[in-house]
């Protein structure tokens, strides 16, 4: 296999708070190939967003700090770049779109101005060329009357349209990697469908790698080639969409899937929920972080932290008992 586009190795990002040190990301390693669409799934506080912010080096000291790890992107370690070099990477080779497009756009400049500014920052083009690129970028994200709407201010766009603008801005410099942090969480479901379809088309067409961060397993299912599930600061399972959804090896992934209500199932019984709540990241439980909530935990789970390893089924999983458990054949309702 060729050198991956992004290679994160043993990333640890900690935040110091009044109560103690929050180990938001604690030993995360993964690779994303060129053109690959990777989903990062997990519940709030699992460290998925902090992972993205760390890659963009947007962790603000002194509260937050990348303690150890390397982030190889296209042959360079991003953590060793100067701030000036990093600014070229941000928005140039790696673009990021956020959950709330309103706060990411400056309300006192027109959308056109902001697009042109981004383009001028990263490409050696004249102002009029930048303008043309901006208009075609808006066209690409299917904003009607792109030329006229360049003069509009962010508040004149609807939520869905603003997110399109953000995508246009992100893709205008033809990045190799697009990080999308909960891009549709603030949107209605019909708008979400519009945006996700658009992102899929654009990413496929341009062979852009995407890191899609979301809590919604449904969104990931239709979009991503590979998925990694995060829990309490580390990756608990990684595999293809098929592996994760049809043959989960980690009890957390399995529980998460059991917790989901499905549109295409007329199921009225109780959901197979995961009991309890995620642990504190200041004093995580000893052994497996998921141990206290896991129905299959044994002594070893309470003692040793499981590492991510190849399971017999093909995907990587961080569970001591992955190979002996047959989660696929456990029916709903076994755990209460």
């Amino acid at each position, binding site marked *: 296999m060729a050198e991956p586009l992004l290679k994160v190795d043993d990333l640890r990002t900690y935040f110091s708070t009044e109560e103690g040190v929050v180990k938001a990301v604690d030993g995360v390693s993964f690779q994303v190939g060129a053109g690959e669409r990777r989903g990062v799934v997990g*519940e*709030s506080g699992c460290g998925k967003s902090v992972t993205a912010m760390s890659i963009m080096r947007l962790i603000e000291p002194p509260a937050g700090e990348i303690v150890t790890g390397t982030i190889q992107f296209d042959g360079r370690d991003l953590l060793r770049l100067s701030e000036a070099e990093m600014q070229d990477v941000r928005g140039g080779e790696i673009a990021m779109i956020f959950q709330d497009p309103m706060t990411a756009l400056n309300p006192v400049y027109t959308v056109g101005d902001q697009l042109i500014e981004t383009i001028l920052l990263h490409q050696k083009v004249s102002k009029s060329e930048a303008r043309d690129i901006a208009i075609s970028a808006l066209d690409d994200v299917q904003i009607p009357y792109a030329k006229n709407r360049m003069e509009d201010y962010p508040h004149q766009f*609807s939520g*869905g*349209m603003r997110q399109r603008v953000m995508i246009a801005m992100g893709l205008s410099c033809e990045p190799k990697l697009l990080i999308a942090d909960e891009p549709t969480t603030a949107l*209605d*479901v*019909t*708008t*979400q*469908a*519009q945006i*996700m*379809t658009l992102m899929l088309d654009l990413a496929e067409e341009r062979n852009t790698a995407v890191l899609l961060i979301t*809590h*919604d*397993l*449904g*969104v*990931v*299912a*239709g979009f991503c080639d590979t998925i990694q599930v995060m829990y309490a600061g580390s990756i608990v399972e990684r595999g293809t*969409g*098929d592996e994760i*959804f*049809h043959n989960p090896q980690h009890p957390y992934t399995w*529980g*998460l*899937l*059991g*917790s*989901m*209500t*499905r*549109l*295409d*199932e*007329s*199921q*009225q019984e*109780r*959901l*197979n*929920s*995961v*009991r309890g*709540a*995620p642990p504190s990241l200041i004093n995580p439980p000893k052994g497996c972080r998921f141990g206290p909530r896991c129905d299959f935990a044994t002594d070893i789970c309470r003692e040793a932290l499981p590492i991510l390893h190849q399971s017999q089924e093909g995907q990587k999983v961080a569970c001591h008992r992955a190979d002996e458990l047959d989660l696929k054949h456990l029916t709903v309702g076994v755990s209460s």
Partner: protein
Amino acid sequence: MTDTVHQDTGSGTATMPDDVILRVNHLVKEFPINRGVFFKKQVGAVHAVSDISFQVKRGETLGLVGESGCGKSTTARSVLRLLEPTSGEVWFQGQSEGATDAPVDVAGADREVLHNLRKELQIVFQDPYASLNPRMTVASIVAEPMTVHDIGTQADRLERVKHLLQVVGLSPEHTNRYPHEFSGGQRQRIGVARALALNPQFMVLDEPVSALDVSIQAQVLNLMQDLQEELGLTYLFIAHDLSVVRHISDRVAVMYLGKIVEMTDRDTLYERPMHPYTHALLSAVPIPDPTVEATRKRIILEGDIPSPSSPPPGCRFNTRCPKAEAGTCDVEEPPLTELESGHWVACHFPEIVQVV
């Protein structure tokens, strides 16, 4: 049964079948847009809820779904009269000691009647962080409805609070804690305990799980189902998540821009939807299964939802509807009619499409 909904047009009193607990007739809620203060001039109105009628049967869960701004939360609040309805009736027919009481119009009730009705009609809110007073202890939060209605002594109330906390799956020792010490899921349970305090018959659940993580969502949904079974509660379940609604509801009503566009029992809605908006909505919901997703066809709607302060003429969905025909849909408003038994649709060109 359901066909009576639209016949009864505000005669002042109502006769309702015993199995119906709530009937909403021609409910309208508009928020005036005013200019000036001492010399008020109404320059327009936000038509949040425009003449909707439905009924809820005793012990069932009616799901009310729609996207943001469709008026589903306004409907819920108007039903409970947390907002004053502009017009319309909300008949509540409770039961006491096994017998069915005479229906009462919540929308027209005077202060005292309304105060007593509050015991029967309760609500669980969406945001577990905003719905609990941060300056009150769990005990006083859960006991508040009893305090307000002057039920029992302080000791009785504390006893009941402890019981209620256990009922919703929390430790009864936590009575003197403050909300900030609890996680989102736990807070939502506290909110449920408060709603249960007066033994209500009817509960509005206003997006009770949308602010929660998936695994916590499932816990709360299970709890709501268990409570319904044990206490014989009736739910009006407001949500934007169609898969959650399918899981919990017996019947579902779909709202768009202040109108109910389709209403039927759960499986019919998901398996044989007739309104083009329902089609689009259902096709847009992602399914957590890559194999299914790979073969699904999305109906992508054009444009955005129009402003409720100037809804389009004719069918409110005509501006985005793939089937809209000029001269019909943008002129004449389609009435909500019963096309099959118990299947109500408001569309000029209804058609069964299997989307899911």
